[in-house]
């Protein structure tokens, strides 16, 4: 069964490459294009995807092939996001801040980091952007409330456009609500600002 030894050798090779750059795991040159990376990943999947080897390998062998494949997938994703970052436009002018490292990506840090809050002390729900008086949200009908909540979630993501759409849906569900309308106006104002 050469197919079997092939995939095991491949897995060994991949697992030996700890901390190697993405292109090495994909067996590519450093200046490869996204298309080449995709082809390489597909080629690896065709020969080494763990699903193809389910019956031919022992559980331990299958585990190592799965792990190797998972790492290559991670490398492919790294490669893709590196390439995309250089070409993609930023959606908003005010780019999100770089994370203040606490438990931090390993690089020298000078910022005194506050103690992390104990787990479980996480507030159950933070106040959403257009602060909703509990009563206003409570008196909405269920359809409007669903979309209102979705609008909140979109706002938390910083997705103003999504929030606007959701808020419009909420208004469709409860056209009488002045609260929803004023919230929509707020979002639209934000959206105009960000443009």
């Amino acid at each position: 069964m050469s197919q079997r030894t092939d995939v095991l050798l491949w897995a060994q090779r991949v697992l030996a490459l700890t901390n190697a750059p993405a292109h090495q795991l994909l067996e590519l040159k450093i200046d490869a294009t996204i298309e080449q990376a995709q082809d390489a990943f597909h080629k690896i999947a065709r020969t080494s995807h763990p699903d193809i080897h389910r019956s031919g390998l022992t559980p331990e062998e299958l585990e190592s092939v799965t792990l190797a494949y998972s790492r290559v997938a991670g490398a492919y994703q790294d490669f893709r996001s590196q390439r995309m970052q250089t070409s993609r436009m930023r959606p908003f002018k005010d780019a999100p801040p770089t994370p203040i490292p606490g438990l931090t990506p390993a690089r020298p840090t000078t910022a005194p980091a506050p103690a992390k809050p104990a787990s479980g002390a996480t507030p159950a729900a933070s106040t959403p952007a257009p602060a909703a008086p509990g009563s206003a949200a409570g008196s909405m009908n269920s359809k409007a409330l669903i979309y209102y909540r979705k609008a909140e979630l979109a706002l938390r993501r910083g997705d103003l456009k999504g929030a606007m759409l959701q808020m419009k849906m909420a208004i469709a569900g409860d056209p009488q609500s002045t609260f929803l309308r004023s919230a929509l106006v707020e979002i639209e104002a934000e959206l105009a600002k960000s443009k």
Partner: protein
Amino acid sequence: MQILGACRYNFQMSVALGIDLGTTNSVAAIATPTGVEFILGPRGERVHPSVVAFPSSGGVVVGADAKRYRLTEPHHVIHSAKRFIGQNIRAPLVQLAMTGVRYRVEEGPNQQPIVVVRDRRMTMPEISSNVLLHLKRCAERQLGTPIKDAVVTVPANFTDGQRQATKEAGRLAGLDVMRLINEPTAAALAYGFGRDRQQVICVFDFGGGTFDVSILRLNGEVFEVLASEGDFFLGGDDLDRALGEVLAAECNRILRVDPRPHAALMMKLMMGAEAIKMHLSENDAAEGEIDGLDMPGAQGSRLPFQITRKQFEDLIAGYVNRTCEVTKQVLLTAGIDARSVSEILCVGGSTRIPLVRQRLAEVFRKEPNTKINPDEVVSQGAAIQAGSLVGNLSAGTGMGARDAVATTAHSMLGGGGNVVLPQQQAKRPILMDVNPATLAIQTAGGFTERLLDKNSPIPIERTRVFTTSRDNQTRVEIDCCRGEARRYTENEPLGTLVLDDLPPKPRGDLKIEVSFRVDADGILHVRASDQTTGIRQEAHLQVLGAPSAEDMPG
């Protein structure tokens, strides 16, 4: 030589079931050497309602029979369990879903929703396991062989907790769930298996309770999901409810009684709404009356209705627009132009609504594929994947599956004329699915650091090295979350991993390696280790709302 007529299946090969466990209906199928065979219910039906009844007469009734108890004992009929499974009961959307059901849902251990019927308390996986067990038994009766292995489909946007709970349901039903696959991916597999072509397709899955849309690239036997988006609380049930509310208002106006506090009456109106919705998919208007509305103080027990398709479309336009927005979004994420999509597969009963197809055609400037059966295609894909995983696929499965996919036997999908040896081993399909959400950990200052991006291929593992933020820190807590917000608290918390007894060192000196691994089922495994001492912590994250750790195998 094969002995014909002895038995239909070679029992040396294991038979594995493909199951589409839906919000409202479930379908099961198996891959055979000549196609896909559906598992039939007691009355020969292919579609099994995902309904579990606990009638006063005792026992447990599942499927079409259970549905009949909806009118007489609405509080003892559990439907739409999929809306609760693996969810945190405190989530606002779950609270809302609770208002839409007539049975009692309470908070149980680990914030999971618990169904209370009379004096029985059951977890959601237990409820769903009844549906799975029913399908398993039907299959065993039909095929005359015990069945252990299964592939179960889940909505693409199911979370880690929902996936774990679904697997748990399978385990409780005595099934070994080999794999969970995403519903749109299963549909694509049913459509594309054995076609060996290069094309980009869109799967638009608008079911009873969930909505998903995925863009896939088919490249020979490789099925690569490029992007997937969805809305977990949007489905045909919402359309029924919208129409049901109108009927309730009519009821109030004509019969002078508000039906809303009456569970059985509202159920009746919702069922009426569902029937009207289906009628309007085929006809321009629906007219008739809903009878048997016996209410104290009502002026009559019949509610006449007259609804045109146009009126219904106005009512649901908001929901349909929302699905189109999500579709445009997913195209953007996939980096695919709408015109380069060569096929649009409609999955889920709600795609039968003409307005949905019409709006979809506007987005893609192309008519969606109407040849596939939206109710069955997902289970066919699951059956093909199940067959593939147990090594039981032949080229004939694909051809047959495609015939089953097409409503007419020799349609364009069949390709015609290809003679394939039935026992020829088919190329196993390779599914490259994606994880549905961004996964991150909390770093000090309350920000997040992303480990895995949304729409990354799975299975996947990514490792990053972190360090401590204080001098002599001997304990590190790694809070994991799901979501794209920069602030940790704005995301959905998944759980915490603790590394203890670290050697005291100046801050920044310890190297802590954190690995996120999402397996082929879409379930997250987190590992953290200190590179100097080799202290390791591995966790299957305990997700709030999921069955507690002692319930889980392993």
